[in-house]
């Protein structure tokens, strides 16, 4: 975690800074996607990059997610280090063959001879009134596939350090950014740093219950922790930061200490990331648990457009607080 007292920037700025630094450091790194150049993506995350690096390194593509992801795989095998931009996480549906059957398997199937050092940047998260096809958090799919790594940054600091590691990694890495976090501010040192993939971060220390939060749900867990504190319950918040590799040790040790755990992830609750993490904890900390590991995720419904309905589908500080209180026998 960063020291306090340092410069604060937004999550979007942290992502942009990571990209710019890596592109300066390594001329093989380039970005490819829809409206990434002059427009800097609809979220403006990439604004300014094309001005520095030109259109041959910040490349606008047609609306061909499968095609340009495949091109990314081939370019990665042959000497470049592509960062493939998929505008909304919902559109990874179109890239699953390129990612799961090609990118993930090239290294293994070739007996270790070819590498695919590529990053896919995309988004997750609901609550923008964007309806069912622009609100999903589908990172569970990639987490399931051996050969891929999956990164879920939750703060500007993590976003920058993890993205730099992802770009330097020799494997296909998918980097999910929460759309609602782009404006989130946090301390990010000016000096260069990286964060290794596969190391969880304890975002808050506590003793009574472990709240495992991923991506957007880390802030939700932190909110709940504040509310719990007021109720006299000390919550530890652990952010795995990557679902694969997964830092099982940190998760299990935390729960061995607290004896209670809730796993909160914004993907659909069923057959999602929370299930794996919960099952891992339930197995690893079995003899320490005072109650079942609870899972919280998006409701098992397509995300509705209507604001009052959409707001019901995602865990909030309040619903996490309520679940924690029940788990602690306090309601």
């Amino acid at each position: 975690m960063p020291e306090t007292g340092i410069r604060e920037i937004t999550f979007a700025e942290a992502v942009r800074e990571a990209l710019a630094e890596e592109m300066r450091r390594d001329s093989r790194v380039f970005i490819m996607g829809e409206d990434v150049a002059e427009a800097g993506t609809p979220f403006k995350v990439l604004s300014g990059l094309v001005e520095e690096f030109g259109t041959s390194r910040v490349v606008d593509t047609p609306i061909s997610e499968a095609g340009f992801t495949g091109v990314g795989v081939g370019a990665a095998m042959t000497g470049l280090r592509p960062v493939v931009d998929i505008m909304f996480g919902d559109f990874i549906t179109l890239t699953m063959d390129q990612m799961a059957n090609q990118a993930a398997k090239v290294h293994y199937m070739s007996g270790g001879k070819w590498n695919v050092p590529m990053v896919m940047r995309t988004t997750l998260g609901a609550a923008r009134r964007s309806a069912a096809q622009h609100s999903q958090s589908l990172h569970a799919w990639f987490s399931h596939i051996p050969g891929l790594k999956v990164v879920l940054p939750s703060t500007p600091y993590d976003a920058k350090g993890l993205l730099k590691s992802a770009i330097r990694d020799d494997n296909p890495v998918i980097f999910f950014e929460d759309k609602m976090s782009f404006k989130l501010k946090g301390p990010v040192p000016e000096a260069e740093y990286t964060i290794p993939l596969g190391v969880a971060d304890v975002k808050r220390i506590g003793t009574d219950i472990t709240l495992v939060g991923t991506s957007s749900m880390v802030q939700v867990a932190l909110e709940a922790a504040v509310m719990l504190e007021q109720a006299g319950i000390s919550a530890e918040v652990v952010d795995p930061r990557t679902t694969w590799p997964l830092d099982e040790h940190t998760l299990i040790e935390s729960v061995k200490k607290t004896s209670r755990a809730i796993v909160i992830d914004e993907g659909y609750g069923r057959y999602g990331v929370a299930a794996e993490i919960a099952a891992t904890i339930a197995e690893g900390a079995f003899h320490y648990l005072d109650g079942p590991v609870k899972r919280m995720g998006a409701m098992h419904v397509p995300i509705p457009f209507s604001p009052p309905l959409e707001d019901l589908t995602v865990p909030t500080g309040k619903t996490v607080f309520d679940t924690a209180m029940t788990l602690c026998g306090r309601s």
Partner: protein
Amino acid sequence: MTTVSDPTRTSAGVGVEKWLRMYRQMMAIRLFEENVNELYTRALMPGLAHLYIGEEAIAVGVCEALRHDDYVTSTHRGHGHCLAKGASPKLMFAELLGKEAGYCRGKGGSMHIADPATGNLGANAIVAGSVGIATGAALSAKTLKTGQVAVCFFGEGALGQGVLYECMNLAQLWKLPVIYVCENNMYTEYTHFSETTAGDIPSRAAAFGVRAETVDGQDVRAVHAVATDIADRARRGEGPAFLLCNTYRYRGHHVGDINREYYRSKKEEQQWLAESDPIKNFAEWLKSQKHADAGALSTIDSELRAEMDKAVKFAVAAPYPGADEVDQDVYA
């Protein structure tokens, strides 16, 4: 195989009444969209909206060539298609505001309006996402011998998606009554189509044996004429068609896209507005042909304005769906 439509055939067999209905439909779309913009500006509309202003001649020219029970699929820029196919502005506004009275009980929103009563299989927020659906509807029509046609509307951005070619191949192999209507408004979000589209657009369809036509998408008469031809042809079992309509969106990609100069010039915009407004030009023609005088047209405009006002009021006042709706209709 790929042809540019002959402008002389634009008026054959269309009577005054139909011309005026087309005018009304185009104006209804224009006014609907201006209200959407207003709702957005007044922060009454959640999410985004993609306005169809400037492209009205396509939806209307095509849909007026269809039967009531013919199918359409639409896109993120879908309000025009829905209205042209017969949707009610009231229920559309309600949907746009996420209200229970909306076409989809508020669950779909601007990008997902669907309505079996008007053959609307749904707007789709995945670019090219409805190509398969429209082609499948055409398969049903053929199999069940209903005589229906399916029309798939999409922007030229969908030309980037492989599934379009997969489906055109299937449609031509199976001689399905489906019409792929490509609305080339020259931009996919913030990028000019020439940066993303190699080769020749109609040839892409013709290479699959699909009948390909090109038309001035600002000329409702031309659109209607060629749409009538290819719809009839499809209904006769002679196979699918691809219709390239050249057009322009007058507004931003979405309602919040205000500063557009980094991707297109004010001058370009103004030229389209001045020279190629589909409604203005059509009104001039109606008057020149003595189909209507200025007064008759402005009566239509006023009627529509009143209707839209009422519809907006209805939608604003309508209640949201109840919390228990959230997990209903996940499964049939």
